[in-house]
């Protein structure tokens, strides 16, 4: 015979079990959703998702946290870095997110954060939107499943930056580049230079042990085309780097660190606290974090970068003079022979520089991926000859080969 105590114990256990099962059913039905909240509250109760963020105000770190709801951010690329970036911004209560990516979720992505195996096959932007809406239904979303670098999509991409703000037909507040290739970064750079749009570039190296973020204000700071791509030196010998058989490695850790750096600086910029880093590198092997700020290159290849530089100078000249704190700035292009090349007597400094090309002056621990020597005039015999043929003629000739 069971004693009263034993029966009581069973009763408590059964009730707990019932509650657990009820919760599971609610989750499955989707009735456990958090409802939208009209106004952010600082009230510290367990049902308020914003209480710990609003506490930043009470502690005097941020003056006006609610302002976060008025901002719109475009995240380009929602892979290892972009998805985590979007999740952080969502949890912080950002007003609006625009997500761009043309990729699908794959099981091969599961070494990274955010996506789950059951989402395999969905487009990344669609999968991301679903998860993020569940986390915070207060955030507004626009998602685009396309490649921004093609002619067909690029204009639409530019239009969404220009008109995708929280307020109708206003530009977004920031563009965040979380893409994994040079072509897409250049496309974002082109768009932002044309629109005069401030943006953050971010990246993780293909060997997964370094990364960086860079804040680009067209006209004011070096753009992505002002210098050859920068790399954080990890003192791994590039020549012995084994790239046989694989394109790229990735670690969830490095990606999360870079996403954290990125969103931290986005928050500082938007909510006006602390200092925004213009360039912040991450060398994961030595735990070294170089920072710097680079001036734009007056000879930048991008005409819109040069135009923005001129506009920036004009705006600066029109401003009333105020004493500003001096920040050490590095010129994007340095005339000196920075790389201390051995100059033999027959070689002049100019010749040495031409052989090397313009090399930006960089902080310790950051270097360029490659240099661009000054181009030699091509012999006219090496160039394509002028032709009387029309494009259609040439297309036909190619087809008939």
């Amino acid at each position, binding site marked *: 015979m069971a004693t009263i105590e034993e029966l009581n114990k069973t009763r408590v256990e059964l009730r707990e079990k019932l509650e657990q099962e009820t919760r599971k059913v609610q989750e499955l039905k989707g009735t456990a959703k958090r409802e939208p909240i009209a106004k952010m509250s600082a009230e510290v109760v367990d049902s308020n998702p914003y209480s710990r963020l609003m506490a930043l105000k009470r502690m005097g770190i941020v003056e006006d946290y609610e302002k976060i709801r008025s901002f719109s951010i475009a995240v380009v690329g929602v892979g290892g870095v972009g998805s985590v970036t979007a999740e952080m911004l969502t949890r912080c209560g950002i007003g609006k997110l625009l997500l761009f990516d043309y*990729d699908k979720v794959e099981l091969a992505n599961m070494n990274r954060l955010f996506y789950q195996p059951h989402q395999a096959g969905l487009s990344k932007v669609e999968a991301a939107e679903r998860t993020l809406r569940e986390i915070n239904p207060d955030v507004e979303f626009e998602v685009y499943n396309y*490649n921004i*670098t*093609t*002619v*067909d999509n*690029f204009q639409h991409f530019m239009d969404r930056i220009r008109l995708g703000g929280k307020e109708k037909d206003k530009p977004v507040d920031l563009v965040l580049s979380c893409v994994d*290739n*040079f*072509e897409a970064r*250049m*496309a974002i750079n*082109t768009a932002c230079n044309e629109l005069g749009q401030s943006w953050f570039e971010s990246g993780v190296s293909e060997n997964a042990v370094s990364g960086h973020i860079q804040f680009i204000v067209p006209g004011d700071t070096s753009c992505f*085309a002002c210098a*050859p791509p920068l790399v954080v030196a990890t003192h791994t010998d*590039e020549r012995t780097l084994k*790239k046989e*058989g*694989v*394109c*790229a490695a990735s670690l969830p850790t490095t990606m999360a660190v870079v996403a954290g750096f990125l969103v931290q600086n986005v928050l500082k910029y938007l909510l006006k606290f602390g200092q925004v880093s213009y360039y912040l590198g991450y060398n994961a092997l030595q735990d070294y974090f170089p920072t710097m700020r680079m001036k734009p290159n007056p000879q930048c*290849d991008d005409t819109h970068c040069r135009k923005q530089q001129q506009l920036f100078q004009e705006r600066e000249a029109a401003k009333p003079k105020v004493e500003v704190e001096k920040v050490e700035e590095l010129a994007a292009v340095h005339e000196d022979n920075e790389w201390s090349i051995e100059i033999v007597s027959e070689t002049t400094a100019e010749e040495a520089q031409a052989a090397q090309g313009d090399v930006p002056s960089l902080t310790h621990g950051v270097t360029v*991926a*490659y240099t*661009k*020597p000054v*181009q030699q005039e*091509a012999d006219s015999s*090496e*160039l*394509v*000859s002028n*032709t009387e*043929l029309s*494009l259609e003629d*040439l*297309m036909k*000739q*190619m*087809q008939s*080969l």
Partner: protein
Amino acid sequence: MVDEATKSTLAKIPLLKTKAGPRDGDLWIPRLKEEYQALIQYVQNNKESDNDWFRLESNKEGTRWFGKCWYIHELLKYEFDVEFDIPVTYPTTSPEIALPELDGKTAKMYRGGKICLTDHFKPLWARNVPRFGIAHAMALGLGPWLAVEIPDLIQRGVVTHKGSDQAKS
């Protein structure tokens, strides 16, 4: 480094003159003509040296390219579809050549079957803007890629000859 054979192949492809991309309006047409001229010359060179290995054509805007490339291994011909878009930032950035049917079959590819280029390709391309065009990207990018990857794919049985018994790929 780029090997001697690739170097001499490259040297025989005419260099381009016009720095223009598909968003540059009227300037894109002369650039596109130069692209075709260089490609025609390159295919002719290949035929003459008994190393004909691809055909390409484009849509009328010249923004989307497609065609075939093939690789001869132990006297058998393996043929693949090639495709790529001309990015808005072309020719500052090179086209990303893709072989969609090999997507997921080799680690030397990015999503969508885009081939993974060597570390030498990007610096070389950057130093030769705007003189390098599609023909150069084929010679410097896809050609060497096929030479390394296809024999490996065949050996691993991932790619099989279409005329043979288990004709499927």
